C-alpha cells in the first residue's frame, strides 16, 4: 500500500507505515501520545494523537491506516482545544505532587502538560487516595499517578505472557490492578520491570535502593565491593546525553570510586564461571541424555516465570546460579577471610540493568548462615540518580580501570548481556578446537540479533545439538508449548525475559521511546567490547582458572543451587 497524504498542507508520500501516526512522525511532527508503543497492540486509549480531517472528523491516528489522498491537520483550533482538555482531565485525576515524584523531569504527562502550556486546571482535583503497593522488591505501583493508558497491561500480557496486571471495573471506576486487587508480591509478577519501562508517568517505578547504598558507603565498618553487569556499561551514558551502546565502563569505575566504593569488579567474571559450569552441566546431560532440553538459569524473571507456570520443567533448568549470585558467592568466600582479619563487613553491591535481580538476591537459597551472597542490588537507573545527586560531570570524569583480580574478563562473559550471548559463550567453549574460525562465525551469527526465536544446530562429537535462543517471555512460553506438543525439539534453550536481553532490562534508563534501534545499539556496544578482548573464551580467563585452583577447587558445587 502506498500513496500520498496531505499533512498540514504538505504532500507526504507513504509506503508501508502501519498507521497515520507513524507517517506524521516520520514527516517531522512529534505528535504526542501516552498509550502508543510500536511494539504493542494498538489500544487507542489516550486520544492525544488525534488530528482533524478535511471533512472535519477527529480521528485517532494510531488506529488509522494511511489513505491515499486523505488530508489531515495536526494542529487546528479544535484539535488544540481537544488535546488540552484531555491533559486537563488527566491532571485533575492525577496526584500532582511532581516535586517528590521519582519520575519528575521524565514524566510524559508532565512533559506534555508543559508543552501545551497548561498553567491552570479548570476541573476540581479528585482527592481519592489509593494505597501505594510497595510489596514487591522490584517494582512500586502508585495508582494515584496512573493515567490508565494500559501500556503496562499490554507489555505484561503481550510481550511477557505473564498478565500480572489488568483493567478492572468500568467507566470512571476503571483501575489498573492485579487480579482480585492483590498486592504485586502475591501475584505471578516475575519482577522483570518492563511495565516500568513503558509507563509514561510515575505510576510504576523501581524499588529505589540508593539510600541503602549511601548508608552502606557512610558506614565505615563496611567494605563495599561492587560488581557491574555487562549491560550497565552500554546504557548508563544515555542518562548523560550519550548514545545507546556507548561504552562507559571506565567512567562508571571512576564514579564508583568517587562515591566511596572500595572495590569495583566485573559481573562478567561471574558470567565466565557460569559458562564453564553450565557447559559442563550441559555435556553431562547430553552424555546421560537426561533432563533435556537444558534451559539457562541466568535470568531470574525467567526462572520465576517457569516456577509459576511450568513447575514440571524445574529439572530442566540449569542448576547454575546466575552470574550475579556466582560472583557474590566467590566474593563472600574470599572476602569472608579478610573480614575475619580486619573486622570489617563486606557488602556485595550489585549494579544491574535488571529489577528482577532485586528479587533474586532475596531468595532463601542465596543466604547462608545469615549472610547473603549479594546485599544490595542497584539498577542502572539508580546509579544514574546517585551520580546526578553527587553532581559529578559524568562526561568529563577521567576513566579508571576495574580493580584486579576480578576486573579481567573474557569477551564471552561480556556478551552475556544480550540475547544469544549466553549461548554464544557456551558455544565458544564447546566448539573450541573443533571448528574453524569461519565456521564458528557462521554459527555464532545465527544466535545473534533480535529475532523472536533463533535456532542453531551444531554437530558435536557426532551428535546434532539443537539450540534455541528466545527473549521475551511470551516467546519462551510459545516455545515451551511447541516442545510439549512435540512440534519442536531442542537440547539447549537460552531464555532472557526482556526483549533484547539484559541490555533492555527493567532497570535500564528509559529512552523517550524504546525501539528496536535502542536495543540494537546497546547490543552493538557489548559486541564492540568483545571485539577488543584478547581473551574470547571463558575458560581462557586466567583469573577464572585461578579461582578453580583456589576457592573453587573441589568445591564448585557452591556455584549451583541444590534443589533436592
Amino acid at each position, binding site marked *: 500500500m502506498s500513496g500520498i497524504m496531505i499533512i498540514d498542507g504538505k504532500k507526504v508520500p507513504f509506503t508501508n507505515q502501519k498507521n497515520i501516526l507513524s507517517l506524521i512522525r516520520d514527516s517531522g511532527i512529534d505528535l504526542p501520545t501516552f498509550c502508543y508503543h510500536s511494539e504493542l497492540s494498538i489500544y487507542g486509549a489516550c486520544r492525544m494523537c488525534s488530528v482533524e480531517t478535511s471533512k472535519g472528523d477527529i480521528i485517532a491516528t494510531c488506529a488509522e491506516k494511511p489513505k491515499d489522498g486523505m488530508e489531515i491537520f495536526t494542529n487546528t483550533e479544535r484539535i488544540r482545544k481537544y488535546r488540552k482538555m484531555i491533559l486537563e482531565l488527566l491532571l485533575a485525576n492525577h496526584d500532582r505532587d511532581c516535586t517528590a515524584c521519582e519520575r519528575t523531569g521524565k514524566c510524559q504527562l508532565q512533559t506534555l502538560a508543559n508543552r501545551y502550556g497548561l498553567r491552570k486546571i479548570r476541573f476540581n482535583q479528585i482527592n481519592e487516595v489509593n494505597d501505594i503497593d510497595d510489596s514487591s522488591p522490584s517494582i512500586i505501583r502508585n495508582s494515584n499517578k496512573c493515567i490508565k493508558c494500559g501500556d503496562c497491561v499490554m507489555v505484561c500480557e503481550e510481550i511477557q505472557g505473564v498478565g500480572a496486571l489488568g483493567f478492572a*471495573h468500568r467507566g470512571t471506576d476503571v483501575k489498573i490492578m492485579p*487480579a482480585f486487587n492483590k498486592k504485586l508480591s502475591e501475584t*505471578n509478577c516475575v519482577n522483570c520491570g518492563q511495565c516500568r519501562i513503558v509507563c509514561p508517568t510515575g505510576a510504576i517505578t523501581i524499588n529505589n535502593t540508593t539510600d541503602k547504598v549511601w548508608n552502606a558507603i557512610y558506614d565505615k565498618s563496611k567494605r563495599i565491593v561492587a560488581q557491574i553487569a555487562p549491560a550497565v556499561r552500554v546504557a548508563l551514558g544515555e542518562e548523560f546525553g550519550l548514545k545507546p551502546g556507548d561504552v562507559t565502563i571506565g567512567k562508571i569505575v571512576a564514579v564508583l570510586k568517587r562515591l566511596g566504593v572500595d572495590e569495583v569488579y566485573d559481573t562478567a567474571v561471574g558470567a565466565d564461571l557460569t559458562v564453564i559450569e553450565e557447559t559442563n552441566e550441559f555435556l553431562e546431560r547430553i552424555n546421560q541424555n537426561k533432563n533435556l532440553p537444558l534451559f539457562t538459569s541466568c535470568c531470574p524473571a525467567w526462572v520465576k516465570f517457569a516456577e509459576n507456570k511450568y513447575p514440571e520443567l524445574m529439572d530442566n533448568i540449569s542448576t547454575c546460579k546466575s552470574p550475579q549470585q556466582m560472583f557474590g558467592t566467590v566474593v563472600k568466600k574470599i572476602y569472608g577471610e579478610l573480614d575475619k582479619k580486619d573486622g570489617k563487613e563486606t557488602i556485595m553491591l550489585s549494579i544491574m540493568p535488571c529489577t528482577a535481580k532485586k528479587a533474586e538476591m532475596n531468595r532463601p537459597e542465596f543466604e547462608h548462615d545469615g549472610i547473603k551472597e549479594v546485599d544490595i542490588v542497584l539498577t542502572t537507573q539508580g546509579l544514574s540518580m546517585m551520580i546526578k545527586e553527587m553532581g559529578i560531570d559524568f562526561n568529563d570524569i577521567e576513566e579508571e580501570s576495574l580493580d584486579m583480580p576480578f576486573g579481567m574478563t573474557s569477551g564471552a562473559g561480556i556478551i552475556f548481556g544480550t540475547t544469544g550471548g549466553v549461548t554464544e559463550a557456551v558455544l565458544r567453549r564447546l566448539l573450541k578446537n573443533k571448528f574453524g574460525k569461519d565456521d564458528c562465525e557462521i554459527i555464532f551469527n545465527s544466535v545473534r540479533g533480535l529475532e523472536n526465536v533463533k535456532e542453531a544446530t551444531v554437530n558435536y562429537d557426532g551428535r546434532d545439538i539443537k539450540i534455541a535462543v528466545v527473549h521475551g517471555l511470551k516467546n519462551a512460553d510459545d516455545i515451551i508449548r511447541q516442545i510439549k506438543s512435540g512440534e519442536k525439539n531442542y537440547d539447549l534453550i537460552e531464555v532472557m525475559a526482556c526483549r533484547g536481553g539484559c541490555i533492555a532490562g527493567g532497570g535500564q534508563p528509559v529512552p523517550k521511546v524504546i525501539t528496536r534501534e535502542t536495543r540494537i545499539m546497546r547490543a552493538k556496544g557489548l559486541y564492540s567490547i568483545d571485539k577488543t578482548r584478547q581473551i574470547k573464551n571463558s575458560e581462557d580467563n586466567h583469573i577464572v582458572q585461578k579461582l578453580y585452583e583456589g576457592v573453587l577447587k573441589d568445591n564448585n558445587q557452591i556455584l549451583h543451587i541444590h534443589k533436592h
Partner: protein
Amino acid sequence: MFNAEVKEKVDEIVIRHNCNKKELINIIQEIQKLYRYLPEDVLKYIAFKLDISDAKIYGVATFYENFSLEPKGKYIIKICDGTACHVRKSIPILNAIRKELHLNDKKNTTDDFLFTVETVSCLGACGLAPVITINDQVYPKVTPQFVVELINDIKKEAI
C-alpha cells in the same frame, strides 16, 4: 482450593463450552447462577483452564454489574430506578427496603444471605412503574408498605 465436587461441576461447564476463551462470559454466567456469585478460587481455576490470565478474568468479572464477587442473598430484589420508576417514586421504595433489611448503599446483602438489594436502570416495564423484581418475579406498581409486607412474607416462609 475448593473441593472435588465444585471442581467437577466447573469442569463440566468449562468442557461443555469446549474450553473456549470466547465463551468466558457464558461460563461465568453459569457459575454465577450456580453459586449466586463468583468465588475467587473458581475464577482462577477457569482462567487456568481457558489459558487466560487471572487479571483478565477479574477484569471481565468486575466490568459487568451483573457479576458479583461477593456472595449474594437467596432472594435478589431489584428496584427499577429508570426514569419512569424514578418519577413514580422508586427511591422511597428502595429506602423502605433498605431500612427493613438494615442495608445501605455500601452493604447490599443481609448477614443471613437471605436478601440482596440492587437498583437497576430500567426493567423495560415502564407502564407498570414503579416496578421491582424478586428473583425474576415481577411486582408492578408497588408501594413502600407493599414491599415491606412482601419481604416479611418471604422471611416467614424462609423460616
